[in-house]
C-alpha cells in the first residue's frame, strides 16, 4: 500500500465523542487526501492538503477538520461524531512532480458511530 499507514484500522465510538484518524506516509509526497467510502456513493473527498499547514475542503467537509503539521502526517478529526459519519475512511497521497498525480491509497479505517 505504497508506504501509507492509517490508524486505527477499526474504531467504534459513541455519538458526540471526538475522534481523530491518522494517516502516515513514508513517500514524502506533498499532496494528501481524506475520502470516505459509502455504498452507492463511491469515494467522496472530505479534505485535502497540498503542503504542510495548507489544507482545503472537499465536497463533504461538514463535521470534519484536518491538520497537517508535518509532511508525513495528515490528521482527520470528527469534532463530535454522528451516526451519519459511520463509514470507511481512506487516506491517499500523490506527488505533484509526476503528472498526472495518480493517487495511492492507504488500507482504510472502519469507523462505527453508535
Amino acid at each position: 500500500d505504497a508506504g501509507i499507514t492509517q490508524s486505527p484500522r477499526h474504531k467504534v465510538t459513541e455519538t458526540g465523542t471526538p475522534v481523530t484518524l491518522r494517516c502516515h506516509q513514508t513517500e514524502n509526497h506533498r499532496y494528501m487526501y481524506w475520502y470516505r467510502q459509502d455504498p452507492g456513493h463511491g469515494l467522496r473527498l472530505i479534505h485535502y492538503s497540498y503542503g504542510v499547514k495548507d489544507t482545503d475542503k472537499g465536497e463533504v467537509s461538514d463535521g470534519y477538520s484536518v491538520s497537517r503539521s508535518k509532511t508525513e502526517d495528515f490528521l482527520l478529526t470528527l469534532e463530535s461524531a454522528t451516526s451519519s459519519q459511520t463509514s470507511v475512511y481512506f487516506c491517499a497521497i500523490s506527488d505533484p512532480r509526476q503528472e498526472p498525480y495518480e493517487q495511492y491509497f492507504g488500507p482504510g479505517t472502519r469507523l462505527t458511530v453508535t
Partner: protein
Amino acid sequence: AQSVAQPEDQVNVAEGNPLTVKCTYSVSGNPYLFWYVQYPNRGLQFLLKYITGDNLVKGSYGFEAEFNKSQTSFHLKKPSALVSDSALYFCAVRDPAGNTGKLIFGQGTTLQVKP
C-alpha cells in the same frame, strides 16, 4: 460540473470470457482518467491511467482501457477474466481545476467472475 458515471452496479462474467466495465465522464477540457480496483477489506489499488496519446491504455494484471473522446467513455476491459479478478472497480477523473490532483470517482462496479 465534473462527474463520472459507472452505469452498472454489478457485472457478471464466466471465467475465460472477456469482460468490460463501463465508465463515462463529464469534464471540461482534456481529461485525465484512472481505474482503481478494491479487493475486500483493502484500500484502492491503481490499475491504469489515460493522459494523452494512444486511446488503448494497458495496465496491471492484464487489464486495459479504451478512451473514446466522442462518446466520453473510458471502459475497462480484459480479454480473459479470472476468478481472482472479482472485486470492486472504480473509475475516476482528475478535477481539471487547479493543480490539486483531486479525483472525482464513479459509484463503483462490482465484478463477479464465476468459475
